[in-house]
Each structure stands twice: as structure tokens, then as C-alpha cells.
């Protein structure tokens, strides 16, 4: 099950009122608190944070909404996917997540946009993420063969993906997160 949370709606309920801009730390904290409340009462395994109709996202707000959400306990129970981000919003989220050594899966806006990994991750983790997203469920044996890696390297990369909730692990196989 997937829950979609439209940030624009949460923004309207925040102290900033009618603004379509996700700016300032207090606004970001208010939006994050709303997300966390929604997650507490949700039984969904995956949550989409939808940036549609969000006009501007500054770094302070990106830090409060995305980075602190991932650092907090409430997001540990589900998979978080960001969707419909413009390039400037991708840049802002990527910047703050790298600062905290965090990463998240995201689908930018636009037809045919493919899932990407934003934030901090080593090359092997990024390569494994790209493989899982493009080819679907995989195992360490399959990934090692696909990327011409040693088995241990493939297993380590996939385990990292699962630990960081960038892919779903089940009975030795690794599944991409749902992106739509």
C-alpha cells in the first residue's frame, strides 16, 4: 500500500497559509510534523511525498522537511519516495541530504523521468540502485554477474540499499521501491 502526501496541501495548513513556497525553517518544521503525524496513523509500507504545486523550496526548508524526516524515527517504519520535484528542488534536496550523509529515492517531474537516488551514496550503492530500478528484482548473484562484480561487493551494495530503505529486501531478493 502506498500513501501519497501532497506537500502543497500541508503547506496550506501551516502557519505560512496561502504561500506555495516551502521556505523558512518554521514552515518546514510544521510541514514535517504534519507528515510525521500522517505516518504515525498510516499502515502503508511506502509514502510518496508529492512536490506538485510547490513553487519554491529553499535549503532550510528542505533540511527541515526531508533531512529531519529521514533522521527521525517515524520514517523508519516505511519507505519514503519523493516525487514530482523540479530540477531546482532536486538540487536543494540533494544538497541537504549530502550534508547529513543521507539518501532518498526520488522521481523528478516530467514525462518519462526515471527514479533517481538523491543525497549521499557511494558509487557501488548508486550502481546497485540504478540496476534494481532498471531491471527489477535482483539478487547478489545476478547483480554481480550484471555489473561484473565479485559476489561480496554486490551483496554489500544491495544490503546497503536495503538498510538505507532505498530498496526492499525479501528472502534474499532485493526489490525496487514502487515509483508510481
Amino acid at each position, binding site marked *: 500500500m502506498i500513501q501519497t502526501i501532497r506537500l502543497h496541501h500541508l503547506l496550506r495548513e501551516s502557519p*505560512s497559509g496561502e*504561500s506555495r513556497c516551502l*521556505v*523558512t525553517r*518554521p514552515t518546514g518544521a510544521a510541514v514535517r510534523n504534519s507528515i510525521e503525524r500522517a505516518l504515525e496513523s498510516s499502515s502503508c509500507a511506502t509514502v510518496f511525498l508529492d512536490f506538485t504545486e510547490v513553487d*519554491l523550496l*529553499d535549503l532550510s526548508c528542505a*533540511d527541515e522537511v526531508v533531512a*529531519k524526516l529521514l533522521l527521525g524515527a517515524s520514517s523508519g517504519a516505511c519507505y519514503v519516495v519523493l516525487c514530482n520535484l523540479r530540477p531546482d528542488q532536486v538540487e536543494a534536496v540533494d544538497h541537504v541530504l549530502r*550534508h547529513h550523509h543521507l539518501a532518498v529515492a526520488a522521481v523528478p517531474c516530467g514525462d518519462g523521468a526515471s527514479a533517481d537516488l538523491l543525497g549521499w551514496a557511494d558509487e557501488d550503492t548508486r550502481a546497485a540502485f540504478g540496476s534494481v530500478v532498471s531491471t527489477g528484482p535482483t539478487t547478489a548473484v545476478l547483480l554481480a554477474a550484471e555489473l561484473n562484480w565479485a559476489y561480496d561487493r554486490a551483496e554489500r551494495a544491495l544490503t546497503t540499499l536495503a538498510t538505507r530503505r532505498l530498496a526492499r529486501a525479501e528472502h534474499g531478493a532485493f526489490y525496487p521501491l514502487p515509483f508510481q
Partner: protein
Amino acid sequence: MTRVVQVPASFDDRTFDQFAEACGSWPPDVRLLIDARQAQWVSPYALVGLLTTGQALADAGCPQPLFTAPQSDDVKRYLARTGFFSHAEGLLEVHGKIPKAASGPTDALLDIRAIRAMKDVHDAVRGISDNATRILVEQLGIESKETYGFGMALSEACQNIVEHAGTAGWVAVQSYTWRRRLGRRVVVIAVSDSGVGFRHSLEASHARQYGERWGDGAAIEAALIQNVSRFRDPGRGQGLAYIKRFVHQWNGKISIRSGTARLSIVPDWDDDEPLAEHLPFFPGAQVQITIPAPGAAAS
């Protein structure tokens, strides 16, 4: 006793130190008369600096300074159009005939706005988005998808006032042509507050690391170059880091003055010194972000 503070004929970031020096020791022990009659040009940086002077004097319990308006009708009209005279009410005792603020299209991306609370930051960001895209695209040749960066930089710069200054500040954004300095159009974001300044804001958390080097210059360096913040939250300090990156992306310039120092990240088109210390004291912090049109000739 009254001290006359002469406003430079061309009053901008380069001549601001003359103005600060003319204000004398701080807080002044006499009433100030800020004489702008000879002013031929006043930049957004100087405008928000003038308002900061009035606010700082009010915060220090000093008598309200006198302000004689420029004689030039063009300069007076410009000041009126930016909202300077209405913001000066209660801070400067203005003398001279003041024109009504003109309405209609303007090259100001954002007229002067007071920043006292986070709500004001939202208003400023909303305010700039109405007019900014047209000006940035038409006058600076910047692609519309790239204009979001201006809003982000503005937001981060204004938040610094609310979070660090402890008092009111002002912001203004203007597009104009720097004929002599650059020969191109530029967008200037000017932010000023009369607050505690960088040194005081960071002293408790960072002075010890710097030892004898600690001062206004080291404090600005810590914030702008090292991205430190007085908050323990590890996510802090990214606002100025973004502004720096944004400035670099556009081959722009950022200059921060606080107390007796000014630190600038200087692009190849400018000859400012990166660090100027032992300047005449001026309260709070003043930030100027200058973004030139990418490679375009002056219009």
C-alpha cells in the same frame, strides 16, 4: 550637539565605509544629521544601510537622526519608488520635499521590505516571484527555469536576519546597469540589519577555536567560508553555503560587512579586496549579493 554625516554623492557598497566613518564612534554621543542633499546615486545596499542606521540608533536609545532628502528629483523619486521614505518613518526625521511614490512598472525586483519575522521572509519571496521572472529573463537573459535560485538565495539571506540579528532588518532587490564597474546589467540583493552582528552571534560557540584571531573578520569567515552556525543542529549553516554556490554558479559576488570587517568572495570582474579589517564600525550585518548578466553587453 549635532554631527553632520555627509552621504557620498555616489552612495553604494564602495563608499559605505565613508558613511560609517562619518557616523563616528558608536553609539554616537550627539545627534546625527544625515545630509543626503548632494546624493546623485544611492544603491539598494546604501538604502537599507540608511534604514539600519535609524534602527540601530533607536535600539541604542539615541535621538532620532535628522535626514535631509536628496536635492536631485531623480534620486528622490527613486527613493520614494523603493518605499524608502515610508520605511524611514519613525526612524529618520526626514526634511525636504518628498514626492509621492510612483506606481507602474519598475526595475526593482523587490522594493524595500522590512524583515522582522519569518512571515516577512515568506512575503519577500512571494513579492519577488511576481516581477522577478520577467526582469531576470528579459534584462539579464537568464532562463526562466533558473530564476528559482534568486528566490532561494533571497529566502536564506533574509532568514539570517530573523535567526541571528535579534532585531529588524531590510531587504531590497534591484536590477540595473553597472556601466563603469562591469559594463553589464546586474541584479543586486541587499540585506541589512542592526542586530548583534556575526562576531557576537558566533562568539560563545566559536571564539575559542580562533583564539587571538577572533574578531569581526574571523566571525564572517567562519560563517561564510566554514559554514558554521551558532546552533548545534547539524543541519544549520547550509543557507550561506547555498548562497555561495549560487553566486559561484553565476560568476557573482557576495560581500558581508559586520562590525569592523568585510569579507567578499570576489569574481574576476571585480577588484575588491577579499578581507577588509579595521573598518569604521557599523552595527549589525550588511550583505550584498551581485549577479551579473551572463556575458551580455551593457544595455
